[in-house]
């Protein structure tokens, strides 16, 4: 299985950087406050994460702050995955 941070980094670079844009994305690159992903585009990033990892990210947790770096996004996804795994089967 791909490393979570690596998948997010690759997706952000592919979708939100223009072809020829030579900026590199690391785990701490500011995405929202750095202007790479704006608050509207965040919706498509959220949708990608939900689909890829089978989670639902509540709107209250999908804040610009929580999405500002790959590292924070990975932490959010990890937390939500653990929560969904821990939830009792109905």
């Amino acid at each position: 299985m791909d490393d979570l941070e690596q998948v997010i980094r690759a997706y952000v670079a592919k979708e939100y950087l223009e072809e020829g844009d030579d900026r590199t994305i690391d785990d701490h690159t500011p995405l929202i406050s750095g202007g790479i992903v704006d608050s509207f585009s965040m919706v498509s990033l959220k949708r990608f994460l939900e689909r890829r990892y089978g989670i639902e990210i509540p709107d209250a947790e999908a804040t610009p702050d929580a999405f500002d770096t790959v590292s924070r996004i990975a932490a959010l996804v990890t937390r939500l995955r653990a929560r969904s795994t821990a939830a009792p089967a109905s």
Partner: protein
Amino acid sequence: MPSTAPSPVSPVADWTEHARDFDWSIAERELDHRPGEPLNIGWHCTDRICHRGHARRPALVWEDHQGHGRTYTFEGLRLRSNAIAQFLRSLGLGPGERICLYLDRVPELYIGFLGILKMGGIAQPLFSAFGDEALWTRLADAQTAAILTQRKHLPKVRKARDRLPALRHVLVVDAGDAVLREGERPLALESLRSPEGFEVHHTEPETPSVLHYTSGTTGNPKGALHVHGALLAQYLTAKWVLDLRPDDVYWCNADPGWVTGTSYGIIGPWANGVTQVVLDAGFSAARWYDFIQRHHVTVWYSAPTAIRLLMREGMDLVRRYDLSSLRHLCSVGEPLNAEAVHWSRQAFGLPFHDTYWQTETGSIVITNLPGMPIKPGSMGRPFPGIRAVVLDPATAQPIEEPGRVGLIALGPGWPSLMRTYWNNAAAYGAKFRNGWYVCGDRASVDPDGYFWFVGRDDDVINTGGHLVGPFEIESALLEHPAVAESAAVAKPDPINLEVVKAFVALKPGYAPGPDLELEIMNTIRRRLSPLAMPQEIAFVDVLPKTRSGKILRRVLRAREFGEPVGDLSTLMEE
């Protein structure tokens, strides 16, 4: 920068008297402009301020997301805008030619804007998040001759350029060691020579100055053409509504790719000789509060979407910063909800004052002046000198009855009303009814003369304070191989007021699903802009249509808002 102690706003003593005695010549006198003399916005924002003894006052204090900063005094602004103007002239660019600014909020955007006006060009600012298709549409319509851009946006310019024969020059402000192609050249602001004895082009109040594109219900975006004389309205509204004074530190959140960012992010403050701070960074509540604290911002012009995002981050965060320098707050872009006004009183000890205007009006037309009692949720009252009414949609006569909803309309004659839509006189003419300029919004007026916004009168989507046209989105959707037909409508949103929702019928052989939805969303984002990207896509078998085959967006929109769908007698049976 020295700390600025908070001070009260300048209250308007008597609204009625102010309105009765008002004449736009007040602005002419204050700007030392006499009828028949040349008038140039670029000169008034720089040279005139220097002549008045403020050459060393900071004009632009700029900072990026990494904390890098640059500061320009009014003398610096004067010399560097002259240098850009001279450089553009040296390329053979002449008066009246459209020169596009396709830049993030870097100093070259602000100074380039003034330089273009000084050499007599028409500045055409475009939001740098526009994709290549949105860029092409606007440059092709304007027959733009040159574009100032950055390396990061160069790929989008290159994609569009093959189809833009009028585009002679691509000027890259941060070219560095980039390999440029034919027709591309660097424009290094800090290396340009400031010419001695530079002569500002002779422009008059009716000389075209700025071309801002805005979206409508039908057809492609339209270019609202403004003139140098708009300065009179932008200067005076900045002074009276934003309450700008020479010792202020002013922050306007708007990007100059949109009209607020030029009228009140460049022209208004600098014509008043006011220092403005610019943060070239995406949204971060902590970063914004820190910025206000460090720069001792006194006057802040923001937008409801941003205010609602700040509200979501909570009051605890606000309390961690010293924001006591703030003394006056204004908002624009969409209706300011009452809750936001109450929250700002709690958070900053000050209410946000709503202001209403649009790309075509060029300056604030309905507002809450400082000192005027605010009715939270209301847009305020007409600015002195502005005749504003609501019209009966059937008769185009002003409605006298308080509380009855009609179309917001303005009596022409204020200096900053657009002069036409570029290449589209018919669309311009259609904006007028019975001698009134009709804004396209619905409102009512209460017995005290306060306007209350109700909604748009057309299918245009107001998202995050920006108008997005459904036609442009639907056209882009149809270019996706899976899409047979589509409709784009507004959907209510707690943060952005509205967002785009698309209804899509697929071609045979394609199946709906989350992968396809995400792919279509990203396609629209890249081609048009993040604002135009549908935040939700509903896959449907058929779309509601009239018997003549026209898609009934109003039915889809009404369903989203939980409103009655209205007359369905023309609906084609599905």
